[in-house]
C-alpha cells in the first residue's frame, strides 16, 4: 500500500522546502520574541494610551486568522503602493500575530513574580530598572519556557500557511510533488513526519530547558 521506495527516493526533494520552512520559523520566532517584548512593554506600562494601544493590538491580532493577515499584507498592500515579497509578508504576519500571544506570555510571567520582590530590591537601593533586570526578569523567564515552547510549535505549524502565497516551503514542495507523482498519502506522510520531527524537537528542547532552569518557589 505505502510505496516505501518512492518515499525514500523523493525525500531529498523535500530538503529545499524544509530549509525554507526552517528560515521562516527562525525569522518569525525572532520577530515574535522582539515584537512580544514591545507588546508587553505597552500592556505593562502605566501610561493609559500605551496600555490601551497594546490591548487593542492584542485583541485584533488574536482574533483574526494568519491566512487573512498574510493576504492583507501580500495582496492588499500593493494597492497602497507597498510591495512586500511573499516571504516578507509571511514572516511579518506570523511575527505580528505571535507577538500578541508572546506579549501576553511575557506579561503573565512578569506579573506572576511577587510585587514584594520588586519592593525588596528597591529597598536595597536598586533603581527600578536594575530591580527588573536582576530580580524580576530572571525569575519570570523561567516561567516563560513552557508557554513559549508551545507558541514556537504553533509558529512552526503556521509557516505551512505561507504555501498559500507560493513561498516554496515544505508544504508547497509537498503540493508540487503531489502534482507530479499523484501519490497523496505517501507525500503527505513524509511531510507530516518532517513537521512532527520539527515540533517534537522543540518540545524536547523546552522540556530540557525546564529541567535545566527549574522554577524556584
Amino acid at each position: 500500500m505505502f510505496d516505501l521506495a518512492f518515499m525514500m527516493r523523493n525525500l531529498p526533494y523535500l530538503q529545499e522546502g524544509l530549509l525554507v520552512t526552517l528560515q521562516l520559523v527562525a525569522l518569525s520566532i525572532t520577530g515574535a520574541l522582539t515584537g512580544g517584548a514591545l507588546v508587553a512593554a505597552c500592556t505593562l506600562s502605566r501610561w493609559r494610551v500605551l496600555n490601551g494601544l497594546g490591548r487593542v493590538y492584542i485583541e485584533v491580532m488574536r482574533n483574526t486568522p494568519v491566512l487573512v493577515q498574510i493576504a492583507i499584507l501580500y495582496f492588499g498592500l500593493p494597492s497602497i503602493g507597498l510591495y512586500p515579497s511573499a516571504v516578507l509578508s509571511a514572516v511579518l504576519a506570523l511575527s505580528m500575530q505571535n507577538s500578541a500571544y508572546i506579549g501576553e506570555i511575557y506579561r503573565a510571567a512578569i506579573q506572576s513574580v511577587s510585587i514584594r520582590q520588586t519592593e525588596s530590591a528597591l529597598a536595597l537601593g536598586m533603581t527600578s530598572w536594575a530591580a527588573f533586570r536582576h530580580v524580576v526578569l530572571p525569575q519570570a523567564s523561567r516561567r516563560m519556557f513552557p508557554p513559549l515552547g508551545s507558541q514556537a510549535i504553533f509558529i512552526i505549524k503556521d509557516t505551512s500557511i505561507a504555501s498559500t502565497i507560493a513561498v516554496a516551503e515544505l508544504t508547497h514542495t509537498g503540493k508540487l510533488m503531489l502534482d507530479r507523482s499523484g501519490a497523496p498519502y505517501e507525500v503527505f506522510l513524509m511531510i507530516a513526519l518532517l513537521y512532527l520531527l520539527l515540533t517534537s524537537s522543540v518540545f524536547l528542547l523546552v522540556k530540557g530547558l525546564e529541567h535545566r532552569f527549574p522554577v524556584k518557589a
Partner: protein
Amino acid sequence: MTTDLLFVAARYLLMGAGVSLAVALGAIAISATFGLLLALARLYGWWPLRIAASLFVFFIRGVPLLILLISVYFSLPYFGVDLSALAVAILVIGLYFSSYTSEVYRTGIRSIPVLQWDAGRSLGLRRIAIFRLIIAPQAMRYCAAPLINIFIMAVKGTSLISAIGAWEVVMAGRELSERNFAVLPVYLAVAAIYFIICFTLSRLSRAVEKSAAYA
C-alpha cells in the same frame, strides 16, 4: 467602490461568512464531543486504547492543520471514500481541535481532588455515577473558558479550507477582490468578520472564567 457595489460585496461576504460559521459550528461540535471521548480514553481507558488516544493526540498536535486538510482531502478518494470539501473540512478541523480539547478535559478532570471520588464511593455510588454527578459538573467549570479559547482557534482554522477548494468567506473575498480590484478593503472586511466572531467568543470566555471563579 460605489455604494451598490459595496452592498453586493457585503452580501457576498456575509454569505461566505455563513458557510465559514457553519463549518466552524460543525467542527466545534465534533471537537467538543470527540475530545471528551479522547480524554476519557486517556484517563480511564483500557491500556491499548489509552496508548492509541495518546498517539493520536501527539501526532495531530505536531502537524499543521493545513497539511491534514490537504492530505485527507486528496488521499481519501484512493481509499474509496469520496467526501465533499466541506465535509472533509468539518471532519478534519473537528478532529484536529479535539486533540486540543482532550487536553483541556483531561486537566480539568484531573484537577478535581481524588478525595471526591472516595467521598462518592462512601455514599455507595458507582464509578459512572460519581463521574457524572460529582466530577463532571465541577470539571466543566474549569474547562469552559479554555474550551472556548480552543473554539476560537477552530474558527480561525476555518480560514484554511479555501486551500481544498471549499467556498467560504476567504474564497468569497478572493473572488470579490479579483473582480473589483478593491483588494485591501475586501480583505480588511474579511478580517473584520473573523474579528467579530472571535472577539465575541473571547468575551464569552472571559465572562465564563469570571463566573467560574466565583462559583
